[in-house]
């Protein structure tokens, strides 16, 4: 049996999205900037995708900028708004558990002279609002907080954060990395007070190399790519029409049945955690239930190295992620697992299971039976 439980890394592209893409690659392949019918047709596809996506967010179509994926969306949001607002202030606030595509741009901004505050999180990975409140000041131009943490599935209170920002630093922009939450939660950035929101296509059964940044109308932001002036100058470069259209299809599929899909994953998560934690030495990280992402489960398995566990499951056809790479490779130690104050011995023993709407109970039962076999066996062999 093959069981894919690494859906936070990437998902299988939906058949309908792939078919739409094949048609746009091989038949209706025009450049949307071309003046002839072929171009008009391609432009129409982009427009359609833009409208579908805008609808899922209750946003306006013009508020969607297509990008090459989550990393570019985060880079555009951070660099683009830092550059556009540099005269208003130099303080930027983010959290210690962001994805590398947020943390690395932040580091770069620090080198450029911005002051970046990294907010701590509690042991469940939830950002400490007192810390945010203390950090917010008039100098603050940007706050960037992820909606769902990719490693432990922590759900950040973005609405509450938006309210705090409005009170304490009304001039600051609020960016949310929603790469792990879009398609799992209904998000209305306009109502929530979110100015920018990053999404990646391949996490929602869309194609790799697709994604978008929602930018609220009239938000001060500058482009990071320059060229032919496509997408109103905000993102030059010929639009990746097949990827954009594929993303549109995937977004529609994600939101058509969002309530039942999310409910399905929640049930899976609850069941999986209850059974997995019956195994000796297995503990779950972060919150569970309604207060967490429905599709991410982080487990620490004492005395079993995550990579050994991962490859053992792989031998039995189950694919998961290691929470953190081997500690001999220090650079890869997860900032999230450190951020929640996980016991250093467990950081090397933490793995992530992530589900999709297609994951079944049978698959989880098989995975659990593999785990019951592997964990006691591998635990016999530890370093002396």
């Amino acid at each position, binding site marked *: 049996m093959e069981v894919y439980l690494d859906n936070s890394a990437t998902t299988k592209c939906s058949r309908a999205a792939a078919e739409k893409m094949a048609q746009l690659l091989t038949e209706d392949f025009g450049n949307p900037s071309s003046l002839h019918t072929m171009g008009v047709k391609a432009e129409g596809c982009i427009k359609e995708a833009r409208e579908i996506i805008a609808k899922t967010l209750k946003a306006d179509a013009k508020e969607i900028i297509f990008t090459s994926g989550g990393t570019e969306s985060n880079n555009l949001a951070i660099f683009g708004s830092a550059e556009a607002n540099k005269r208003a202030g130099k303080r930027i606030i983010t959290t210690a558990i962001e994805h590398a595509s947020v943390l690395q741009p932040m580091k770069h901004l620090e080198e450029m002279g911005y002051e970046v505050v990294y907010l701590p999180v509690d042991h469940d990975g939830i950002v400490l609002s007192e810390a945010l409140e203390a950090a917010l000041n008039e100098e603050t131009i940007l706050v960037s907080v992820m909606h769902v943490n990719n490693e432990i599935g922590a759900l950040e209170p973005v609405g509450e954060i938006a309210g705090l920002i409005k009170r304490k630093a009304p001039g600051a922009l609020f960016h949310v990395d929603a790469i792990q939450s879009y398609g799992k939660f209904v998000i209305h950035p306009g109502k929530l007070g979110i100015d920018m929101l990053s999404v990646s296509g391949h996490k929602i059964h869309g194609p790799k190399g697709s994604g978008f940044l929602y930018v609220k109308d009239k938000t001060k932001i500058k482009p990071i790519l320059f060229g032919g002036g496509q997408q109103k100058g905000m993102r030059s470069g010929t639009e990746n029409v097949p990827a954009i259209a594929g993303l549109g299809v995937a977004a529609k599929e994600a939101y058509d049945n969002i309530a039942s899909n999310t409910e399905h994953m929640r049930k899976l998560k609850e069941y999986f955690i209850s059974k997995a934690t019956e195994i000796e030495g297995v503990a779950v990280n972060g919150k569970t239930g309604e207060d967490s992402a429905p599709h991410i489960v982080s487990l620490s398995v004492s005395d079993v190295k995550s*990579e050994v566990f*991962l*490859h053992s499951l792989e*031998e039995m056809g189950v694919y998961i992620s290691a929470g953190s790479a*081997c500690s001999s490779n220090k650079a890869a130690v997860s900032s999230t697992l450190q951020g929640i104050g996980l016991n250093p011995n467990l950081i090397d023993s933490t793995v992530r299971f992530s589900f999709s709407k297609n994951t079944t109970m049978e698959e989880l039962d098989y995975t659990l039976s593999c785990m019951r076999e592997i964990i006691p066996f591998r635990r016999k*062999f530890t*370093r002396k």
Partner: protein
Amino acid sequence: MYKSFLIKYGEIAIKGKNRYLFEEALVSRIKYALREAEGEFRVRRLQGRIYVDALGEYDYDEVMDALSHVFGIVGICPVVLTEDKGFEALSQDVIDYMDRVYPDKNITFKVNARRARKNYPMNSMELNAALGEKILEAFPEIKVDVHQPDVLLCVEIREEINIYSLEVKGAGGMPVGTNGRAMLLLSGGIDSPVAGYMIAKRGVEVDAVYFHAPPYTSERAKQKVVDLAKIVAKYSGPIRLHVVNFTDIQLYIYEKCPHEELTIIMRRYMMKIAEYFARKNHCLGLITGESIGQVASQTMQSLAATNAVCTLPVYRPLIGFDKNEIIEISEKIGAYDTSILPFEDCCTIFVAKHPVTKPNIQVIEKSELKLSEKIEELVKTAIETTEVITAE
């Protein structure tokens, strides 16, 4: 502008009656190396020299890169070959050559003529003087310097006339295939690919064995070893890489033997299995990347303990090298960046925190008695399930 390359080889020239064998091996290695370069080539032996002729369009850089990986070559000279149509024609060819190869004429030169065909009307000294004069006439800025010229222009009168002045250093050593075959224990680290390279340099064909320990080592770690074998194969020719699944043997040793002896005992079994495949493939020895004292398993005592299980000679070309010297060669042969990829270090559970550094063979052998129940069967299974990948 060059249609041919003159291949200079060193040690082969002194190998007496076996010379033709070495030359044949070199020709075949050159042909093999050129298979990836764009263009069609002829490789020919002529009067104790080897020429590579391009039979049409080709990529100069690719040819140079391919030839620079062939052991046995001391120097590669891009050469202009012309027919003998008399001195006037020759001097024109020489002037054209200088003009095209040295667009900047602010140089010094010296002509080094050799009359290999003795019926040519001018002798070497006369040719030096006459050609030098013609060049000076054609390019007034150029100056002669007989002691330290920028350009040493070689003009050799043979069946064809050879005109050349550039020589790119070759890889040296002896053509692979002239000194038998050996089995390399390839680990994925920095040392073993260098060891394989160095033995191949002496004309030895190389096969390799890698001990894979899933799930403790990943598919990527294995892919890394395959990639390293390919890098060595650029010099040595195709390597048959034996991938042995070693996990069960490791776990069994872990369960039965004192933990601090684990690495030594493991290495003894690796040597035994490597020797099995060595004999099967008609290898005349084993190759390891060991260097005295580098780690606990490479002390003199540890080396003796692992060596004791082998009857074939074990070649350790890096035995007296410091790590930085090994890294230097690793970088030179293009293996370093691959060697340092961090895939493998998750099997640290098999490394004791305080391993023995001065193992006593009798003590080790006694520990190994505890394995007698199942070890033979496990070794047999490991051998039977070994996967052979050809890296080239």
